């Protein structure tokens, strides 16, 4: 729980402290490699660099000004008014206006129709001068924090269809298979230190590490299970706080139509082994939808394994041909799925790990958490499971009640909270991470640049 966070923070400080002796240099090209797509919704790396949000959140989850400089809530959090920062321009020189913000948010909400995970928590949004006014049917007490999510980034498209934002970088094209972003000199938050960023997408971790070892990459991903190895190799590793939830979802039909059978599954899983061995003690064992450091009450959800109780709940039933699948094709997730299958096998469930092509009774998912405040985080996590707008209060007790109400159904079995980590080369300086573990490349500089 908090210890994990402390360790992460220490690592963060170590990383920053070791490089903060000199002022950052300007210039240079930062080369980063990632497994995913740089434009993936909602939090692709390129999106983060090109686009801005109305707000950002501090490490403690407090909304901070970004494109909006202040905000006020009215009508018991049903109406919010955000004042836009003045003198902000899109990367093509177009000024940021209330209308452009509203237009961008409309696009987000329209897109969310196709992607239900992104739900707009307001009924209407309109611009009045430099103010953006949100009106919702239900109270949205954490709207400023919600608007810091990348899903609500302000974007527009130019005539060629290219994405344009107000962020520190702008897209210039592809070079050598990499997406190239150039520094936005007129960024309202200041020009980034590096002149450009090359994003090599869709690279396996193995390839990333190989490139990193030969100096072809400056920043590469370090999966949680490899953090330990990276540290043993004395790599510079920056570890975020827990931002990815490993959870098992149980389809409430067929063999698991009964709650007791689902509860048996939840009791049969061995989270400690997953955390200690597969994820090399980098995970936080949890039975909660929120990390302990974020909520402070996750320990109320018991994580202990009780095989005898699981067997008793199963009651001698032996559902045949149970499939456990995971949409994440990584070897570690597959390994985790196999371990869970073994756990369940001990409890009497004949579970076989299979690809996603088959209808699965059990699904192992890795869900990303972007929000940094408990209420927004719970809202975000519940949205992952198709339960939007469930969180209407922000006090811890209410959040716990809401979470317990959801988890009592036993269709979601949270397992681990995992951090994200990045290894950075010797010439990289001042690499920081956002609260959800993304590298803050705009604040990063390169050694030796002028």
């Amino acid at each position: 729980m908090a210890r994990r966070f402390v360790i992460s923070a220490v690592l963060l400080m170590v990383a920053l402290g070791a490089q903060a002796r000199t002022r950052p240099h300007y210039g240079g090209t930062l080369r980063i490699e990632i497994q995913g797509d740089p434009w993936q919704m909602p939090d692709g790396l390129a999106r983060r660099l090109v686009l801005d949000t109305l707000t950002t959140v501090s490490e403690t989850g407090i909304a901070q000004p970004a494109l909006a400089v202040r905000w006020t809530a009215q009508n018991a959090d049903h109406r919010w008014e955000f004042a836009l920062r003045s003198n902000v321009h899109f990367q093509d020189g177009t000024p940021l206006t209330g209308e452009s913000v509203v237009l961008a948010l409309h696009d987000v909400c329209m897109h969310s129709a196709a992607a239900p995970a992104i739900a707009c928590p307001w009924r209407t949004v309109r611009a009045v001068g430099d103010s953006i006014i949100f009106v919702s049917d239900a109270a949205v007490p954490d709207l400023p924090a919600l608007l810091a999510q990348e899903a609500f980034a302000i974007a527009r498209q130019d005539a060629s269809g290219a994405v344009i934002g107000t962020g520190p970088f702008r897209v210039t094209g592809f070079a050598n298979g990499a997406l190239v972003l150039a520094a936005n000199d007129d960024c309202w938050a200041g020009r980034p230190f590096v002149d450009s960023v090359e994003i090599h997408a869709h690279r396996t971790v193995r390839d990333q590490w190989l490139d990193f070892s030969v100096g072809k990459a400056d920043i590469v991903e370090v999966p949680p299970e490899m953090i330990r190895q990276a540290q043993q190799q004395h790599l510079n590793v920056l570890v975020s706080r827990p931002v990815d939830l490993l959870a098992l979802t149980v389809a409430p039909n067929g063999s698991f139509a009964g709650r007791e059978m689902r509860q048996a599954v939840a009791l049969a899983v061995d989270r400690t082994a997953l955390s200690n061995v597969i994820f090399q003690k980098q995970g936080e064992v949890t039975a909660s939808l929120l990390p302990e450091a974020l909520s402070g009450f996750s320990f109320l959800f018991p994580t202990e394994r009780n095989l005898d109780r699981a067997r008793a709940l199963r009651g001698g039933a032996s559902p045949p041909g149970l499939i456990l699948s995971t949409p994440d094709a990584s070897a570690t997730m597959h390994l985790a799925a196999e371990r869970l299958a073994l756990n369940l096998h001990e409890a009497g469930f004949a579970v076989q790990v299979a690809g996603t092509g088959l209808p699965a009774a059990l699904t192992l998912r890795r869900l990303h958490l972007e929000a940094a405040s408990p209420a927004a985080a719970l809202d975000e996590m519940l949205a992952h499971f198709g339960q939007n707008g469930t969180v209407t209060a922000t006090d811890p007790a209410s959040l716990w009640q809401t979470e317990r109400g959801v988890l009592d159904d036993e269709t979601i079995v949270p397992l681990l909270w995992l951090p994200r980590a990045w290894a950075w080369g010797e010439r990289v300086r001042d690499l920081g991470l956002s609260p959800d573990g993304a590298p803050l490349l705009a604040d990063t500089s390169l050694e030796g640049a002028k």
Partner: protein
Amino acid sequence: MCLGGLLVPSARAATWEQPALDLARQIAALTGPGPARLILENASTLPASEIPVIRRLLEQDLHRLGVLSGGSDSATLIRVTLSENLQGGLWVAEVQEGTEMRVSMLPVPLAPAAPSGNGGTITIRRTLLITDDAPVLDAKIFVTGGVQRLVVLEPERIVTYERNAAALGTSPWIQDQSFPLTHSRPYPRDLRGELVAAMDPVFDAWLPGVNCRGAESNAGVGTSLAVTCADSDDPWPIRSGQKAFFNALRDNFTGVLAPGFGMDLPPFYEAGELPHETGAAMLLTLVDGRVLLMDAGVAKPVAGANDWGSDFAVLRSGCGSGAQVLVSGSGAAAAGDSLRAWEITGREAIPVSAPVSVDGVVTAIWPSTDGTSATIVVRRESPLRYEVWNGSALCN
């Protein structure tokens, strides 16, 4: 040797009285009067020494509310977990009666952590001036009209603080005035700014592309300050009567000086005047990492300064050669940045003090108005805050 530091009062009973009472009330509302078994666990970063205090307060409050927490065989179990989250402390009470479990929670402000200022024998004295949530670019004390003011330069405003003149040195600084800064162009990402003493006005504030002037104003009751800002590309004053042009996009000095030495300098971050017997040399930390000493129109690279940071301040301590260079540098990795005093002998930088860890990132070092000390800005994480220290070198 002297350790300078600010001692934060330990969180004692008074700190926890109200939270304990509030939680006791919540627990009593769940259990009602009667015997109960109380278990208190600490899952937070609270020091272990605080736990007995909190437990005692809780037991007292519960007892007053009719909940007798001594019953070890009671069917009612009260498990209080002192947890915390990113926002602060969270005290969670689980009341278990049979198989029924009810929960109550109470957010509690975390006690401020004691800053680290210890470190055994050191030669650098540090005094905490103020802690700010917003980034601090520079902070200096100016005395105007007999009033001592701490002027803090933030990216978007200038804030002045005053404190009780009768208890100088011990009472906290209290915010007095705040002046927003306006700038038509975006700041560079690694924003720097410096407060420079002036005869009239009181101070100049130099930021990339912006120059503000702080002057006394008698418009209000007593003496106050007025600050006016304007876009400006004027060179910033550096030592030895020189001024240097600042690259507002690159956050460093361009190397063009006015009036200059008749030669082009490479871009540099910081410049300082280092006195010696025959005059003064100018010490420069270049953008490329080198340290340069300009003496009599000759630029000499300084050896032994590989571990120097970009920011430094020359302290006229009177010790040793009479002037030391206070530089941020690499200390033990786990301890964050460090400060160290150096002397320049010939072309070589020689450390003259042990490094002092600052438990954070040194974001700025500016010399004080009299040149005997320096303002040191340290960014600390978790939670994020900026500490402004005054550092000086003490002779052994």
